[in-house]
């Protein structure tokens, strides 16, 4: 390994060959500001287009200022990151960006979380001396994501996530010069593109150009309506991240405070999506055992591997990209939808409320869940099983708006019966968790033996594609795991080519799974935050007395009283779904 010595701001530093000035400066504790650079190191995503020019530095002997994020260190280099010339240029660049940016910061959805706004504050910008043409684009309102490209600063992070990481390929830089913008092909709106609504573009957008659709006004209205029974469910990943919105350390578990906050917001029943995750395992695990049993018995018509189907971004992805493989994923609905379906049937009957008078709200780390909730197949006579899906960020806004001091809230429990869950339900929030939960149950159902150790550490981790095998009492079950749709695509291509050896595959669209979802508090490219959230989820699992879905007493009761057994006709009707080929061609659109 070759080492290079250089000087930055009069201080010597030694770095590996190939290191950029940006990173060398970081080593000295010098944070060079940038608007476009993004580095999710553990996920192998580095985005350095050198486009925003905010990170420019002065390099002795070089005529022009150099973008530090895209300039490699050389032996003997002398760099200045804060000379008069650099500071003036940086300010001019920022002022020019601001001169083509709307001034509606007070009412912008990203206000307070905007990198551009923060930089203007940091540099003390008090006036914008440049006046000229301003970009005007029609805002694009899809069921989950809003694009307001007037606010785009062309950092192109979204393009990297959409193309390189997710391989969805909906967003691309188009046009040139002043007209340049990031848009779907033919400047269609997202609703008419193959967007999966994974929300990773939203998660990395430095400004308010990409945001989620805000459903909090509808939730507030429902809560204020005395004729409505408002039921809330909250996804596992939310409890591991919500605290960040209230200044708590990443990875702080706030399950108890979350339940308390929801109760104070006025929800009539505070339930847990983890309950529905346990239910998902009963259905999905049984389906896997059924497929496996028939396969091992020599039935050639059985489709293996079976793929998980709880991630709505992933479901959208395979409907668009693998329309000829719709029989591969499990038919089990996602926990969000299972919850809605059971809440508006079993539970509504129990409390004698008509489903039309019940409003089901879900708190999700996700923006694709908004789209999923709006799918026609999840409605009964036009009434959706889940009325509104809001993100972790939206929930934080609701709590703040309701004058609730989150950090001083007592720890409370979820209500029964749909609030009781096992550790298996909790780990749904992290990559590898769904399949681990499924294995815990499938193993015991298949072998009729009790698991000595419920932790399957071989299924955990952050690598994009992982494989492991689990011994089902003599039968080796091969399992694949992918997070990120680009990684999922690779596993899918293998299946298509007949090269896949797996019996079961878990797929989550977002980096690290739901904990890194598009609706979570912004991690600003810091992957240590994702690790902390992941740790929190596994901690919650360990703290649970019950850690296997089929041991959840309220799940057992639900089957006894209502569903019969897993995969029963009633279960099929309420808890399973089917998929649609949705390949788009221009000629069909307009």
């Amino acid at each position: 390994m070759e080492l290079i010595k250089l000087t930055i701001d009069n201080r010597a530093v030694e770095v590996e060959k190939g290191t950029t000035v940006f990173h060398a400066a970081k080593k000295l504790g010098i944070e060079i500001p940038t608007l476009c650079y993004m580095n999710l190191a553990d996920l192998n995503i580095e985005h350095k287009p050198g486009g925003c020019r905010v990170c420019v530095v002065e390099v002795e002997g070089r005529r022009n200022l150099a973008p530090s994020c895209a300039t490699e260190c050389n032996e003997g280099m002398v760099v200045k990151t804060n000379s008069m010339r650099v500071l003036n240029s940086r300010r001019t660049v920022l002022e020019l960006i601001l001169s083509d940016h709307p001034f509606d910061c007070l009412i912008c959805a990203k206000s307070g979380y905007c990198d551009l706004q923060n930089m203007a504050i940091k540099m003390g910008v008090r006036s914008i001396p440049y006046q000229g043409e301003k970009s005007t684009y029609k805002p694009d309102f899809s069921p989950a994501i809003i694009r307001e490209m007037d606010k785009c600063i062309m950092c192109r992070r979204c393009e990297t996530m959409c193309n390189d990481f997710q391989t969805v390929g909906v967003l691309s830089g188009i046009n040139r010069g002043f007209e340049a913008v990031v848009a779907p092909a033919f400047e269609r709106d997202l609703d008419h593109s193959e967007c999966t609504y994974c929300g990773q573009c939203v998660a990395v957008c430095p400004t308010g150009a990409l945001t989620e659709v805000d459903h909090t006004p509808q939730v507030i209205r429902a809560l204020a309506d005395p004729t409505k029974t408002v039921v809330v469910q909250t996804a596992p990943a939310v409890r591991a991240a919500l605290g960040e919105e209230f200044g708590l350390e990443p990875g702080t578990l706030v399950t108890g405070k979350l339940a308390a906050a929801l109760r104070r917001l006025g929800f009539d029943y505070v339930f847990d999506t983890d309950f529905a995750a346990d239910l998902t395992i009963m259905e999905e695990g049984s389906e896997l055992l059924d497929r496996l049993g028939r396969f091992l018995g020599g039935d050639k018509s059985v489709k293996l591997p079976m793929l998980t189907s709880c991630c709505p971004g992933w479901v959208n992805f395979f409907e668009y990209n693998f329309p000829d493989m719709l029989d591969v994923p499990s038919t089990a609905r996602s926990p969000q939808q299972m919850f809605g379906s059971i809440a508006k049937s079993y539970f509504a009957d129990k409390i004698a409320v008509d489903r039309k008078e019940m409003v089901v709200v879900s708190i999700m780390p996700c923006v694709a869940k908004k789209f999923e909730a709006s799918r026609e197949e999840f409605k009964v006579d036009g009434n959706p099983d889940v009325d509104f899906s809001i993100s972790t960020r939206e929930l934080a806004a609701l709590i703040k708006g309701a004058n609730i001091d989150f950090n001083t809230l007592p720890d409370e429990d979820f209500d029964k019966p749909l609030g009781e869950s096992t550790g298996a339900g909790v780990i749904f929030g992290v990559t590898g968790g769904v399949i681990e939960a499924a294995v815990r149950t499938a193993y015991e159902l298949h072998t009729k033996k009790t698991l000595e150790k419920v932790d399957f550490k071989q299924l955990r981790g952050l690598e994009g594609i992982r494989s492991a095998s689990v011994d089902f009492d003599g039968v080796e079950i091969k399992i694949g795991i992918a997070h990120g749709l680009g990684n999922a695509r690779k596993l899918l291509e293998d299946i298509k080519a007949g090269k896949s050896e797996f019996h079961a595959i878990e797929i989550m669209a977002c980096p690290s799974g739901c904990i890194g979802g598009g609706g979570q508090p912004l991690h600003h490219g810091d992957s240590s935050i994702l690790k902390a959230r992941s740790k929190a989820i596994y901690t919650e699992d360990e703290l649970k007395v019950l850690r296997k879905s089929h041991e959840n007493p309220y799940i057992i009761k639900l089957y006894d009283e209502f569903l019969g057994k897993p995969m029963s006709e009633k279960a099929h009707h309420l808890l399973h779904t089917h998929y649609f080929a949705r390949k788009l061609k221009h000629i069909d659109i307009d």
Partner: protein
Amino acid sequence: MTSVKLKLKENDVKKIQEICKSFNNEPGELINVLHKTQEYFGYLPAEVQEEVAEGLGISVAKVYGVVTFYSFFTMLPKGRYPISVCTGTACYVRGAEKVLDEFKRILKVAVGETTPDGKYSITCLRCVGACGLAPVVMVGDKTYGRVTTDGVKDILKEYENE
């Protein structure tokens, strides 16, 4: 970018596939593939871009990004007789703009547009390397030098009965 739709026939799709194949379906050959495809169709409507994307295994958005970046590519069909008026410096100072205005007046279309019968389209170009003949007009591959406003009618007359 404004565009005109095109319903692709089986032959057209085959042609695009052939072009992609002649470049080994290599994503890095996108610009060359688009050149050849535009040569064949005269323009690059959305339907054609979708086939190119499929042929090279890249997203349509990426193809559209390249088509909108380079001014050479167009999503509007050119006329059978594409008229290009050079507005480079030499031609400009010798009256190219007046010549251009005369074409626009007679054909009743703006720069970048095509006459409704699909016969003529007007574009501007920058220097064909024949500044001694300024102002220069090209119709298809044919070059006309020292064009005057009066000469515009004569040029168009050549194509009247075609």
